[in-house]
């Protein structure tokens, strides 16, 4: 295969957002088509290089082809949509039953979610697993939060020789786990984004909505340190909020257009902010609210941004536009 066709197929591969098992036959078929077209054009008198350029041009905009191909392949059934909404439904149950501070049950639920994620992440990574993967990151986020709060205090006490051996060991463990957790979170998000940044954004949705919950609990010392009664007062609100997220996730899977799907994710995150912010911080002005909205949208867009930052250039998200046209033979 020539460099020109190879480059075109590489761009198509990068834009397809399909599993390798689905993408390979698509690329093979389109390659066969382009080779047929090139052979026809050569028979009409075009040289090989011009025939290739013309074949690529006639094939059309690679982004549009990729988008339509994704829509043809990524049309999950209602069953898959419900599977995607399942972990959100589980969180709704925790809030509705007032179990949001029941640590043993929460640990069990997160362990189960992580096991399901691990199994299906390795077995073809179906689209419905991404919301599950989002929740699997929560234990790591708890470690990060603990480390940010406890490690500086722990080291200060240690230096002042006020700490016990056990507390010192916990501080060191958290300090070691901090970079490891960061690495794991970034790696999972990046791996998801490389498959499809939109699915990675879907993975981030519970973080965006539950960050509002943490905002509600901040005046009480934060989730881990607030009293169970303080935490429980927001459970009914969060149950309704997460129910809305579960419904939106199920609907997300039935939508075709990618921009509409991303808008849906942004919409539910912004609505949650609009509901929570006046309760958590009634004094926030429009500028503060707008800033929060930008941060929230940034969180949802972070997989795409991470992809741009680490994989470099807009080509990692979209292939470059425009293929030069072929010359007519003299």
């Amino acid at each position, binding site marked *: 295969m020539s460099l020109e066709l190879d480059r075109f197929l590489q761009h198509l591969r990068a834009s397809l957002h399909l599993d390798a098992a689905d993408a390979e*036959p*698509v690329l*093979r*078929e*389109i390659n*066969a*088509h382009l*080779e*047929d*077209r090139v052979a026809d054009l050569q028979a009409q008198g075009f040289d090989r290089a011009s025939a290739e350029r013309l074949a690529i041009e*006639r*094939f*059309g*905009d*690679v982004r*549009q*082809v990729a988008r*339509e*191909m994704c*829509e*043809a*392949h990524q*049309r999950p059934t209602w069953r898959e949509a419900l599977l995607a909404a399942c972990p959100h439904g589980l969180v709704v149950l925790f809030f509705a039953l007032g179990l949001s501070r029941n640590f043993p049950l929460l640990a069990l639920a997160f362990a189960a979610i992580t096991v399901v994620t691990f199994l299906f992440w390795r077995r073809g990574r179906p689209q419905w697993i991404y919301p599950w993967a989002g929740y699997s990151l929560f234990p790591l986020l708890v470690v990060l939060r603990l480390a940010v709060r406890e490690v500086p205090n722990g080291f200060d006490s240690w230096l002042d020789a006020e700490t016990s051996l056990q507390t010192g060991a916990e501080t060191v463990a958290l300090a070691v786990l901090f970079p490891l957790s960061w690495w794991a979170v970034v790696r999972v998000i990046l791996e998801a984004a490389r498959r499809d940044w939109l699915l990675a954004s879907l993975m981030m949705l519970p973080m965006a909505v539950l960050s509002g919950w943490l905002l509600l609990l901040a005046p009480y010392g934060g989730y881990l340190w607030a009293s169970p009664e303080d935490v429980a007062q927001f459970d009914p609100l969060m149950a309704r909020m997460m129910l809305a997220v579960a419904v939106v996730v199920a609907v997300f899977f039935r939508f075709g257009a990618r921009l509409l799907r991303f808008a849906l994710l942004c919409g539910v995150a912004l609505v949650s902010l609009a509901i929570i912010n006046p309760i958590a911080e009634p004094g926030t002005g429009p500028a503060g609210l707008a800033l929060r909205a930008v941060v929230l949208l940034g969180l949802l867009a972070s997989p795409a941004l991470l992809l741009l930052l680490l994989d470099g250039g807009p080509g990692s998200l979209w292939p470059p536009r425009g293929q030069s046209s072929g010359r007519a033979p003299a």
Partner: protein
Amino acid sequence: MWGMARREKYSGELLKGSMDCLLLALIGREPMYGYQLIREVERQSRGYLQFKEGTLYPALHRLEQDGFIQGRWERLPNGQERRYYSLTEEGEKALQAKARTWKSFAAAVNMVLRG
């Protein structure tokens, strides 16, 4: 020139709307691969209908996902591979339904045009 561009756009929209029906009809006659379908639709319409090449494959894959057609790889003696599509039983039914709809639609438009 402007009128020509408008006519081309109109026929493009019409073609997009009837793409599934045309593909099912062609594949219903004999198993065909993508490039062959493009040439056949052009030949049989005497050059009037031309599929946008890139949009053909998503349409084929959509029809396959819907269970109307089935693709299978074949290797030619020269080593080249092609994916031939054939109509499924469900595709036959869909073709008949789409053809009926199209004929009724065309007849209704003709009636209005004739006045």
